[in-house]
């Protein structure tokens, strides 16, 4: 992996056979390497500009406005950011969102790791079939899966009915649904596919001879796992954690359906600002703050794991 950039630059520097006399515009493009590079990525670049950069600029601009009845007062001001800092509501919901999705990330990665491990090391035939089977539940709509959990966790749901008919409880457990727990459980299931796949790929890549060497040098299975397998699978763990943490922090539908009054997250608050509360600039501000928080946490996470990795390898 580490030598591939060198290979690419080498390949690029190699003198190309002169293109058969092509004049005009394409000739011009062929001449400059930079221009050729930009031409190659231009569809993606255009799409990124239209789909991400422009909306982002609008979002930043809008966050500096203030809402006024149906319209906006367009004088730039940082009042929204001050309000977000001063009012405890925003900080609390942001904190809760990070907390919930942090737990959801931990739960998902911990639960998915053994599955990925099993397929990578103990399944020898039809591996693809196993992977497909594990991701099968994710072929249904996200909304349906959330609803399914509502049925499982509900007042007369699967868990409560089972516990009651077994005589273990007398009244249904009410903390299962409409609580932050329900959101964590559902997120951990709903995003499992996004953890299994990167974990599987990184485990599958591990050179088996390293494991043999560890055994030869006297490591038992547990020591071997913690000294060889786990450190080598860290890239997968990091990828899976980021893939789950980033989108779940801003999740909207799961807390809306299962969170109850105490399980609301920042995504719901942002939706409310663009909906009934009718304060789009505040919504834009919250969206930007959320983005900055996620970026900061993801940055810290990557730096920490890099330090840890350098230590143990």
């Amino acid at each position, binding site marked *: 992996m580490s030598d591939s950039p060198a290979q690419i630059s080498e390949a690029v520097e190699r003198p190309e056979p002169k293109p058969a006399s092509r004049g005009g515009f394409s000739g011009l493009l062929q001449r400059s390497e930079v221009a050729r590079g930009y031409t190659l990525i231009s569809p993606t670049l255009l799409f990124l500009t239209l789909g991400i950069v422009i909306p982002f600029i609008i979002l930043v601009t809008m966050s500096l406005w203030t809402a006024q009845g149906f319209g906006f007062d367009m004088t730039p001001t940082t009042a929204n950011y001050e309000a977000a800092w001063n009012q405890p509501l925003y900080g609390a919901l942001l904190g809760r969102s990070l907390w919930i999705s942090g737990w959801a990330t931990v739960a998902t990665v911990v639960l998915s790791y053994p599955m990925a491990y099993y397929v990578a090391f103990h399944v020898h035939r039809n591996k693809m079939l196993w992977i497909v089977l594990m991701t099968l539940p994710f072929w249904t709509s996200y909304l349906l899966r959330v609803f399914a959990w509502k049925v499982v966790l509900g007042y007369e749901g699967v868990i409560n009915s089972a516990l009651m008919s077994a005589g273990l409880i007398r009244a249904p457990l009410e903390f299962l649904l409409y609580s932050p727990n329900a959101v964590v459980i559902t997120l951990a299931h709903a995003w499992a596919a996004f953890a299994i796949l990167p974990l599987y790929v990184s485990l599958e890549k591990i050179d088996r001879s390293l494991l043999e060497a560890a055994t030869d040098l006297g490591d038992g299975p547990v020591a071997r796992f913690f000294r060889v397998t786990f450190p080598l699978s860290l890239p997968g763990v990091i990828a899976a954690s980021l893939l789950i943490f980033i989108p779940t922090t801003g999740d909207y539908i799961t807390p809306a359906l299962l969170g109850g*009054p105490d399980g609301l997250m920042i995504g719901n*608050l942002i939706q409310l600002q663009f*909906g*009934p509360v*009718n304060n789009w600039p505040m919504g834009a501000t919250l969206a930007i703050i959320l983005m900055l928080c996620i970026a900061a946490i993801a940055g810290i996470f990557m730096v920490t794991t890099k330090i840890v990795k350098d230590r143990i390898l």
Partner: protein
Amino acid sequence: MDVLDQLGAVREGKMSRRAFTRSLMAAGVGMATVPLGAKALRAAEGDQATYFTWGGYDIPEFFAEYREKHGGENPDFAIFGASEEALTKIRGGFVVDVSHPCNQSVPRWAASGLFQPVDRSRLTHGADIIPELIDLQGNDAEGGGNWMIPFDWGQSSITYRTDLFELEGEESWDMLWDKRYEGRLGSLGAGADAWWVGAIKAGVPFDQLDTDEAFEKIGAVMREQRPLIRMYTDDTTTLEQALASGELVAALTWNSSAVELQNEGVPVKFAQPKEGALTWVCGLMIHKDAPNLEAAYDVIDSLLSVETGKFLVGDYGYGHSNAKTYDEFDEETLTGLGLSKDPTEILSAGHFQIPQTQEWESKMNATFEQIKAGF
């Protein structure tokens, strides 16, 4: 090359990557073009009006008359959970033909400049509308016509389980503040209902809602209620299911929840609180750029028809705006549903919603959302 053969080839590792990609692409193109065909077919049968309405109003039972005129097709439906959400979407550029707000939002909706007055004389059933329902504050457009044609009217009150809720004395709004049932009470999530109920509970008259004192008083009442509430939702089905299972013993709902649960045999009652219920009239407004104006009028006419009214009163328990609908019911049935041939009687017995400013609406929603989130 058939599908089974391909699967076999994959299993034996004989299929090249290129062949596999090609078949995937074929499947993808096939899937992507299927909906195109269906859409082209539908468009050929004539464009239908889009009706933007509350969940539960998107049913074929309301559109028998419309279907007669439009080759058996229903209008297209778009659903909202709360009327403020609907206005935000329309302001964001969502063009519909007909939408379904309530009387207290009419002046604000009209002020957005996104609606056109409705010409009542163009409606077949226009003359049958109960006059008191169309003669609402802010409903007359300046150049003639009405902003909103009334369709349904009713109450927001408490639906409670007669077997689970132990009533102390008279029915009252205190039932939704009853600490004995902490965590077993539910509420509609929109401020357009809940906040007004808070005003009744706090004893603030509706013409004095827009004062700091009113916000303080009502806010205090809502904060007191919040820890008792298991769920705030705009989805009436969720409330109905929770009431049916006994997860909730009482909830703030509209008439239809109680009537539907009673029809299912669940022992519930729609309370007549001694302080008075919250009463409202909802109706239909036409978008200023309605793409199918003719069909839009047909939607309104179909909703005003007696046939629709019979379903609305009998199955949903709401009042209808067509005076002739009530000839289909005897006095006893109507009383049982908490309705009357004379809607003014019912509407004035409760607390009738009155229009507020946009500033008030935004401030109220912001405050209420904050309280719901626990602050």
